[in-house]
């Protein structure tokens, strides 16, 4: 069975709403980026410069940028969730 997450769409369809795909694209395109020091301005530019990113897309809000960084880190490091019991520490 085809994986429904991998069919026809390509990078040309990316918009600011495509958080996970942008995170994966950034991990591929900028493996040496120092993510901990990333500014919102630089992140916006890195996304806008991705090949085929939808031209003319409105600037992202803070929530979107935060979500993209989270997705970028997950794309680099893989799944690794906090313990649900952190709160009892």
């Amino acid at each position, binding site marked *: *069975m085809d*994986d*429904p*997450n*991998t*069919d*026809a*769409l*390509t*990078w040309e*369809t*990316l918009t600011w*709403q*495509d*958080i*996970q*795909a942008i*995170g*994966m*694209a950034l*991990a*591929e395109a900028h*493996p*040496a980026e*120092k*993510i*901990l*020091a*990333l500014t919102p301005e630089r992140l916006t530019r890195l996304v806008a410069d991705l090949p085929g990113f939808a031209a003319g897309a409105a600037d992202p*809000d*803070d*929530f*979107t940028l*935060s*979500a993209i*960084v*989270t*997705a970028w*880190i*997950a*794309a*680099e*490091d*893989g*799944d*690794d*969730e*906090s*313990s*649900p*019991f*952190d*709160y*009892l*520490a």
Partner: protein
Amino acid sequence: MSAADRSQAGIYWQSRMGNNSDGIGGNCHRYDIVTTNEAGQAVRGRLVVDYGIKIHNGGGAYDCSFPSPEALFAKRGQPDPAHAPDALLLTHSHEDHLGALKHAIDMGYRLPPIHCTSFTAELVKKSLAGAGIIEPERRPEIHVVKPSETIAVGGAEVTFVPVDHLPGASALLIRTREAAVFHSGDYKFDSTLALGERANPEQLRRIGKQGVDMVLSDSTAAGEDRPKVTEREIGRHLEAIVAGQRGRAVVAGVLGTQLDRVVSLGRAAKTNGRLLVVSGASLVQNIQAAERAGHSLEKAIGAPILLAKDAYGIPADRALVVTTGAFAQPMAGLTRSAEQQPGALYIGGDTTVIIPQRAIPPVQAAHRAMVERLDATGARVITAERAEEMGYGAIHQSGHAIAADTKLLYTLLKPRQSVSPMHGAPGQIEANAEIARSLGIKPLVLNENGAVVRVTKQSVEIVDREALPRIGARETGDTKQLPRAKPGEGRRPRPPAIYRYDRLDQAGEAVLSRDVESYDGPARTPRPPRDQRAR
């Protein structure tokens, strides 16, 4: 059961889930404000404080419960019902205080504006984005409050009072003409924590002098009557451990939210000429969120933090690698290393492993098994218990108020009417109450949720009780459909889960009905047949 009468002037407090007979979690409190403004006009408002989950299992599929949103929030696309709150105030960023936000949204509810400090705001964004909640129309407004700032909301003046727990953790002082309630959230006193604002005893003393009628306080560790260990002392003990490991690799397993401990480990690394390397998405995400929120770990340590991808050329004995897994959670770095999974960080006979965190009961079996596996690799494994036996001293301290902290809080605030211990096992609740009694303060001990408590300058009284259902959430195996990528482009994070929501009784045990709300979010990707699932 009909709704309680909340028409008289005062502050009405109700624990929706937080005084549980079956354990800590799902913290959520409702405050109804009935007051008058300067012009003498009647003002009514409603606040919700925290909206968290209570985890039911120690591993495997996600299984939790949380206060039902049905009588708390408005449905999306519908006008506000009479019960819709003016605001949702968050004390801090642990899952038992904000983990249910994503579930309420997925159930079709519209959250009111959220007010919280900057790090909590970042972790709300992370939580919602991780659940695939990215559309502007489903996201709540988030208003960032500065430490010690007072905001006017819901007819009350609410001050976010810094406490020592996590970066940005805040107690809430809710004040009207009729009453003042101090809602502690999770707290302790440790002036040596590096990140965020510190609890200020002078500020608390001033608040007490202005008058506090009731204190609701964290009981998690109130029964621990022993000398306190500060984070600075823990840091010194960690430095001593690292100093004794020359020529060996050092790996530390922490919790993803334990950022002050990462700072202590980073300082131990720096003192001993090692570079701090962090590994594990949840930990890196939280460090990045802290940086965005203005709590820089690199500044606190005084040295750069490297990510695992940047550290390949560094000799193992020149690095201190911090990864996740202190509670032996599946998929965490230390757990994967112990199980020698492909791609996991190597741990062997030339490695020292530090676990600066005591195991709590729900994870003790998994933790014991992980330590046994690590021992079997030949590594030198120093757990929190072993560190003391080996003479290094304590390398862990609870994040919650112990008896001395509890006594200090009450001494500073001097509540006029009462203290209500919350957020604890029954023994800890009683220990908290006993501390109040020892100071001549009458405790109000509530062993269950639902009591409606009216607070005024003259009295604290239970005026009614309401039945409060919970919602249970379990993974269905289906996932939310994500924007797609071509095969092989990047490592694909796990798509957000879709949950089944069940209505539970007040104790969280009996299932009264199933699928109480249909899932209301992005498209669904069905779980693939068993023989086609990725392993």
